[in-house]
């Protein structure tokens, strides 16, 4: 299995300064974005590649491809940063046998059908169920926007 240094849910994906601070902290050299629409739409894919720091190798994959990719043997010195928009793909990874010890939750914005349950996180009923399932499979889920913020365990919020 590849060496995952962080798994993060942030709807804005590669968001300028917020992302930079996490990459510095984790010392990651590969970003894996797991998002079906981004992986299959050429325009969205180009946006992501244009936004990624030049020193980082970026992969944008569908859930199936990502699970297969993560199961491969880890090359020497590779440090993978897994990034998704919602908890769904993370749960999918765990279900396909990828070991995740913790998931850090950054930002999920408000929209019709989503309820706000923290300063920067809103989720629909289905997404809340995904969080519950993640926690039930032994993954610790924390809310933390930038590294200097305190970690807040999601258990209290569900």
């Amino acid at each position, binding site marked *: 299995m590849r060496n995952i240094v962080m798994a993060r849910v942030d*709807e*804005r*994906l*590669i*968001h*300028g*300064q*917020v*992302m*930079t601070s996490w990459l510095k902290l984790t010392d990651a050299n590969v970003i894996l974005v797991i998002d079906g*629409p*981004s992986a299959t*739409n050429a*325009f*969205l894919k*180009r*946006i*992501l*590649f*244009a*936004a990624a720091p*030049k020193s980082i190798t970026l992969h944008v994959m569908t859930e199936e491809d990502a699970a297969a990719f993560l199961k491969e043997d880890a090359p020497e010195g590779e440090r993978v940063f897994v990034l998704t*928009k919602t908890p769904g793909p993370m749960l999918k990874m765990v279900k396909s046998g990828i070991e995740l010890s913790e998931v850090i939750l950054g*930002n999920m*914005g*408000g*929209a*019709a059908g989503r309820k*706000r349950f923290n*300063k*920067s996180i*809103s989720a629909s009923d289905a997404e809340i169920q995904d969080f519950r399932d993640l926690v039930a499979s032994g993954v610790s889920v924390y809310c933390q*926007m*930038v*590294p*200097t913020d305190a970690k807040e365990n999601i258990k209290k919020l569900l």
Partner: protein
Amino acid sequence: MDVSILQICLISFWYCFANISWPFGSMGQWATLNRPLVSGLVVGLILGDPVQGTIIGATINIMYLGIISAGGSLPSDSGMAGIMGTAFAIIGGLDTGAALALAVPMGLVGSVLNVLTMAGQCFLIPLADKWIDEGKSNRIMLINMWIPYIVKTVIRFVIAFVILYFGANALDSIVNALSGPVMDALSLMGGLLPAVGVGLMLLTIFKGRARWFLFLGFAATSYLNLGTIAVAFIFGIIAVLVVGFDADDLSAFRSVKGENAMTYRYFSKGDLTRAWLRWHWFCESCYNYERMQGLGFCNAMVPLLNKIYKGDKEGLVAAMKRHAMFFNTDHNFGGMILGICASMEEQKKAGADIPEEAFVSLKSGLMGPCAGIGDTLSQVVLLPILSVIFINLASQGAVWAPVAFTIIFMAIFYGVGYWMLKLGYNSGGETVLKLMESGLFDKVIEVASILGCAVMGALVCSFVTFNWNVSIVQEGVELFNLQTGVFDAILPNAMPLLLTMGVYGMAKKGVKSSYITFAVMGLGFVLGVLGLIA
């Protein structure tokens, strides 16, 4: 001096006005009227001493140079700090050092107010959603702008009035109680504080080869006595030469053709301008944690959607919903995304197969990268460098400097904002992508980092005051003086530079800016009380 109720009311009103975004635009008002540099002049005018107000405001502004608002984080409120710091300094007859010491806690009060505002505005969202569901597009302006502005203005006025009224009355007794060594120590402490602003600023620009230019700018001022403007001019040219530009860098702009077959089918130029002005002025009038600029974006789209979906209520409701989702980006790039969405809505109306998902993906895909680039260009590059030049003039008492700063910044923001709207509308997303891929932004940011580092080096010398007061005197003859005998002889301003680098080091380790500010205040106060610095 005595302060009248009318003066207190005028200052309170100014605080409210500096916090709304009409007529200068959301970013425009925040970056000009709400800066200590500009509000210092205005408070000075109200209190009858514009020159002193300008000088104090400019000095307070240095401390907040490096504080930027990115990714939805809310830093210390420089607006409140500038207005209250200047007001109390003039009323109490304090020097700039003591004014800085008063400004810091006021900035924290202001940031608490801002957090409460953003949390409070979340409560307007359910009502906005209800009106969107009912297709009442013309009420969006009411909920996005009028209601929050009226409520905020009343609350802000009362708070500012209370602080000023009771603060001014208590000020005399506070100043009297603190007179003598404590007051002197506070002033000395104020001399150290600008290092916080410069050190935090370095956090974003002190990298790569730009780092050398901090020391070059420092040497130019410390040894050669060059002024800040001279340093900015010389190193601006050097930065462009060092980075180097070629014709390819601008190719993305050249590929955009003006009006084409896809544009202006349903919208007129006036429609587009109206939508953009609603964005420019009111994108953050209902800024809140749940949707950020989401409602502001919807509000900007309303005139366009009203036109396209005339008589089609279902279509209007669906369109408003997709444009009211969570959205947060840089103001100018936001205008560009508005242009792209306008063009997509127009093509959809003309029969192109553009699904709902396309809008959502485009907006959420672009807002992050655009915020990253836009925040850097406007808040890390343009604002501080422009501020520094005018702060330097204002700190010498030039009352025209804040006015010129405001006019120049405004011209740039209206000009660039409108140009980017057109760029987005005429090219769809293509230009944005080509720009992001071209590497032009990286080059511009490196030029700015080099220029910024050089100017920060110069600022350290002219604004941070840290002089040792350690000497050995025998029978009235000074045998040894640490400051003049050692530091000034070898490397003048070495202590200000060391302190600034210390602030930078702490910030780099992730220490919060408010803790750093208090640490520097503590250091200055202790050294001042002990008489070790003068």
